[in-house]
């Protein structure tokens, strides 16, 4: 195991982190002055001066008055780092057991160690995902990135369904609280009421209050037609004998593929056949086959409950 990074490696990490930060700040219209950068990167004024000079010499950066601006080459490099970061997060979230609130930290390290080829390979392996697990767009191999068309949740109007597009992953403590509430990117929600202690949210068949300090970390976009006005509920709320129509799957990666291979595609009917001896797991009838799922898996499948019309009592 390597205990010490080589100087060259440390240098690369510093350069890449700087590029990434300048890129992010530049597009968020935030401060890109030297002191702001020094603070964001945790460097003192002498170190940041040296770093910026190096970037300038490599023609990655140009100075505009007090602010800095990336050159096209600098922007491309920054996007490559962001691409590596977000793809690695996607990979960790989909294909490994690592909890979601830890993937950012892993990706922060990994992003500096991947070659372009490795990143492209990963992209292909994952089936070219468009978004990382936090809902941020992943730059393409040609370093194009769809601009994040999102609205802060705070500004969302009550009454229309919103789809979570982004959940800020820092600080990790807030992030884990948000995902504990089931508010992952891709989840539809409705704002029912707002008050001083937060928003009243309806999502996945539950109503709950989202504390004010968390609201700011969530961005949303309008939900597609298909999700409008359909109250999506997790499969696990169905009782024995009840039926539902699958609306969407929240799981990603291998689990999603497995589910879809079993015929769990949107529009498929699913019926709860019976619970097991201990009440868990439950057996479901899907396209003529009986499949047992644990509650964790049933919570990933969102359905629209079907009311029995021919009067069979529940």
């Amino acid at each position, binding site marked *: 195991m390597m205990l010490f990074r080589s100087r060259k490696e440390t240098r690369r990490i510093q350069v890449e982190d700087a590029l990434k930060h300048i890129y992010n700040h530049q597009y968020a219209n935030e401060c890109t002055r030297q002191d702001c950068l020094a603070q964001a990167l945790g460097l003192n004024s002498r170190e940041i001066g040296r770093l910026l000079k190096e970037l300038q010499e490599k023609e990655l950066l140009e100075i505009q008055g007090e602010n800095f601006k990336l050159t096209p080459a600098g922007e491309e490099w920054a996007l490559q780092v962001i691409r590596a970061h977000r793809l690695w997060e996607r990979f960790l979230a989909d294909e490994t057991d690592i909890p979601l609130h830890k993937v950012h930290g892993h990706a922060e390290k990994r992003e500096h160690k991947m070659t372009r080829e490795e990143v492209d*390979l990963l*992209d*292909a*392996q*994952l*089936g*070219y995902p468009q978004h990382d697990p936090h809902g941020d767009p992943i730059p393409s191999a040609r370093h194009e990135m769809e601009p994040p068309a999102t609205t802060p949740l705070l500004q969302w109007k009550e009454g229309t369904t919103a789809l979570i597009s982004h959940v800020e992953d820092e600080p990790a403590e807030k992030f884990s609280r948000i995902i504990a509430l089931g508010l992952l990117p891709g989840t539809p929600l409705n704002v029912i009421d707002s008050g001083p202690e937060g928003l009243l949210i309806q999502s996945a068949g539950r109503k709950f209050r989202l504390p004010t300090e968390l609201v700011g970390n969530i961005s949303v976009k309008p939900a597609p037609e298909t999700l409008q006005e359909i109250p999506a509920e997790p499969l696990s709320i169905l009782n024995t004998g009840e039926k539902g129509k699958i609306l969407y799957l929240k799981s990603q990666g*291998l689990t999603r*593929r*497995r589910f879809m*291979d*079993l*015929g769990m595609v949107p529009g498929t009917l699913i019926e709860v056949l019976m619970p097991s001896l201990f009440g868990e797991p439950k057996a479901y009838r899907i*396209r*003529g*086959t009986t499949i047992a799922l644990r509650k964790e898996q049933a919570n990933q499948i969102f359905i629209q409950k079907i009311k029995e019309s021919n009067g069979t009592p529940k």
Partner: protein
Amino acid sequence: MEPQNKQIKVSSQQKAEEPISSACERCPLAVQRFGIDLEKWDYIVALAGNPNTGKSTLFNALTGLRQHTGNWPGKTVARAEGGFGYQDKKYKIVDLPGTYSLLSASVDEEIARDFILFGKPDCTLVVVDSTCLERNLNLVLQVMEITDKVVVVANLMDEARRRGIEVNYRRLGENLGVPVIPAAAAKGEGISEILKAIHDMVMGTTHTTPHRIASEGPLKEAVDELTDMIEKTYPGIPNARWIAMRLLDGDQKVRETLANGDLAQLTQGQVKTRESVDLDV
């Protein structure tokens, strides 16, 4: 890249690592990867299907073997092989793991898929459960994307009849574009018809027009364009459409196969193969 110079070796499943000289001109890849001794067999038949459709029962019925057939998902964890003779021809039959799909690239699905693709069976039997055709047809459609030489065995027809499920097998066959043979393998019903269907398929007297998925809508354009490119590059390749779809799906294994020139070996003519390989440099 010069695949034609690769020394073709018998896989470790067979005796030694000595090159096959005369075995089979058209499918060195299959021999190399799957250790099937083609010298003793005239034709290879693959047996695919969902789990619990009675695949192993059919395998036993065809080969006379007494391979144990448990009833739990994932039971066939590796390939089982056997043989039978029919009308003076010898057939090798390979029982593939039962899978719902060929897309997920889990181990068992990969075994099944690779065999159908690289093993180049002369006929692929897809066993389906007549009592729940809808689910089973998913796999049939996927297999038909890889190979045209498909015979569908609609097994458990007795069970379907008992439950009042009426299946119009002829109609199903017409719509699928491949032969559909109703059977009840456990009782031995339909076995002779299956043997005849296999025979007709390997003799080339059966002509199939497999039903295609993604033949309309937004997928079509992308698939068609890529298929065209692949067909032009590798003339005579039998499964260009399937490869196009796998590439669009980001299938790493198929990408590698394309990049390293193995794909060229899937084409029938050797001469054509060399030409396309030269372009690869």
